């Protein structure tokens, strides 16, 4: 059961969390940020914006890791993320205890 062993630098690792900012009325609804987000943070909104496009909105609040891919591929400069804080990763031992 080597998978239950904690990593050697587990106390040093910190996971960054990001906040997504969206300029709603600049979006043209191409869907790049929704389809290419590696953590699947975004989803399509229910109501369109003032131009009539369906803009992205955040589905899961705490899953964004501030990787910046949405900012990189957005053709309209309408979305970006900022770093909010760092959190400690859950140890495998705690995850096993939670599941049982």
């Amino acid at each position: 059961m080597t998978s239950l062993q904690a990593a050697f630098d587990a106390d040093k690792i910190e996971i960054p969390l990001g906040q997504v900012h969206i300029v709603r009325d600049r979006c043209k609804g191409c869907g790049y940020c929704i389809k290419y987000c590696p953590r699947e943070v975004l989803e399509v909104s229910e109501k369109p914006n003032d131009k009539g496009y369906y803009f992205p909105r955040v589905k899961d609040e705490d899953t964004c890791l501030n990787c910046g891919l949405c900012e990189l591929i957005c053709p309209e400069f309408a979305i970006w993320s900022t770093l909010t804080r760092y959190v400690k990763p859950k140890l495998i031992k705690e995850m096993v205890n939670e599941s049982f």
Partner: protein
Amino acid sequence: MSSINVTAVSHNEQHPIDSFFHPNSMPSVWCPGCGIGTIVYTYVQAVKEMNVEPDKICVVSGIGCTGKIAEYLNFGSHEITDGNVIAYAANLAAKKQYMKVTLFTNNADFLVSSAKDFLEIGKTMANLLVIHNNNIIYCITENGAIPTTPFIRTSASNDFELPFNIPHLAKSSGAEYVARWTPLHAGWLKYSIIDALSKQALSVIEVVSPCVMFFTFTNKIGDAADQLRFYRDNSVMKQYEPTEHLDLRSKREVIIGKFVDKKEF
């Protein structure tokens, strides 16, 4: 943990690179999903990482959708009439007023109108960076065939010519840095632009980008994200590939990478 509430973000917030645009120039005129936006973002990021003052960078662009870049960017910007783009940019680079002159071209003003000027500027050692937005179609005149349109993959009128090979043209006319990327390889594209901006010679970067309205819909590929994924899945990175093999044939992969870098050899 519940401090993140994105729907409540005000609309007056500034994008991190909004200070590089002319005020009130956004939103742009480009179609949803156009590749030009990614090119502009990576170029601004490259300038930001190099810590160059915006006054020392000059941006020249010509006609069409790509011509709007010089209209938006807040560097020393020049938007030039059809047919004179490359000659104008080379003369501007020869004055040595700016650190680097960047020329954003599309197929119309690069290959069709002023290709003969490009054959000259490599010999005259022009200190110029050409970022070529190759979307393999005429956008504004609604999908006519151009010299780089692949053979079977059609525009509105069927293409019957073999596609033109831009990296081979760039290498044979004396460019010291030639690369090709797609918009989804934006990280590589950024470092490629940084490499090319720090060179004191002619360098050419070709970006194979999607034209959503006129190429994707005509060829029934899907929507914008599908064509971007199509380019990513069908692209193979081959560094220092001989430039004779680099034309965009259909049913063959798009070869991306850095092909010529003369300082390393």
